[in-house]
């Protein structure tokens, strides 16, 4: 008969689900986003150079849908990278786990809050 001890529940599920959401979002739209914002618009290939102008960017960031998109993309991409980086640094034995957690999950949390605040500050 088993005498299984109920282990203390890990809170990893929180970070794992955020990691999963960010991973899925970046898998579906990441390549297109990098192409659009980082290669096509700045060089003017396929997109006019005015695509990323201040006026356009501001309009997007002030739009409620635009805000949701920006919050989802920035925040979830950071949570995804945070989990990956935390586990990689842990594999590499780069430091005490608590330090690694703050350096990864902590940064993702700060960026999430900052993005939320910036989007509000930019107005509607």
């Amino acid at each position, binding site marked *: 008969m088993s005498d299984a001890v109920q282990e203390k529940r890990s809170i990893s599920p929180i970070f794992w689900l955020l990691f999963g959401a*960010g*991973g*899925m979002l*970046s*898998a*579906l*739209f*990441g*390549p*297109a*986003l*990098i*192409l*659009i*914002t*980082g*290669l096509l*618009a*700045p*060089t003017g290939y*396929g*997109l*006019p150079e005015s*695509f*990323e*102008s*201040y006026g356009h*960017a*501001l309009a997007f*960031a002030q739009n409620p849908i635009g805000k949701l998109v*920006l919050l989802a*993309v*920035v925040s979830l*991409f*950071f949570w*995804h*990278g*945070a*989990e*990956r*980086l935390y*586990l*990689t640094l842990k*594999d*590499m*034995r780069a430091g005490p786990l608590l330090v690694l957690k703050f350096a990864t999950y902590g940064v*993702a949390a700060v*960026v999430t809050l*900052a*993005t939320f605040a*910036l*989007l509000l*500050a*930019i107005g509607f």
Partner: protein
Amino acid sequence: MSERRPYRRPMPPNWWAHAPYRAYTARELSGVAVAIYGAVLFAGLISLWRGPDSYDAYLRFLRSPVSLLLHALLLAAVLYHVVTWFQTLPKTMPKLILDGKQVPPQKITQIATLAAGACSLALLLFTLWVAR
């Protein structure tokens, strides 16, 4: 059994850099690239909030060769992330049984990767259309 003295061989500290774990480490780092791109967007948001002059400096950075090279590398890394993500995805699902047999995980990977390609393509085409 008085002779028992089990010997623990230590794990090499850089196991993640050697076969067969190198591919796994590369996969994990491609996920970090996702966050690096997120940071580029975050920097843009900050400069947007600070005002037109700050945002223009950001645009100048985006147009620089350094940024273009960075984005090319990020694109390559994120494409590797896409491919490896859908290779891992079937592992997180219970076995899919159709007609009494298990659907091979490779099939799920194939279909999901194509769907992801279609999503990115759709976003790209939509953006090109909107920008006309």
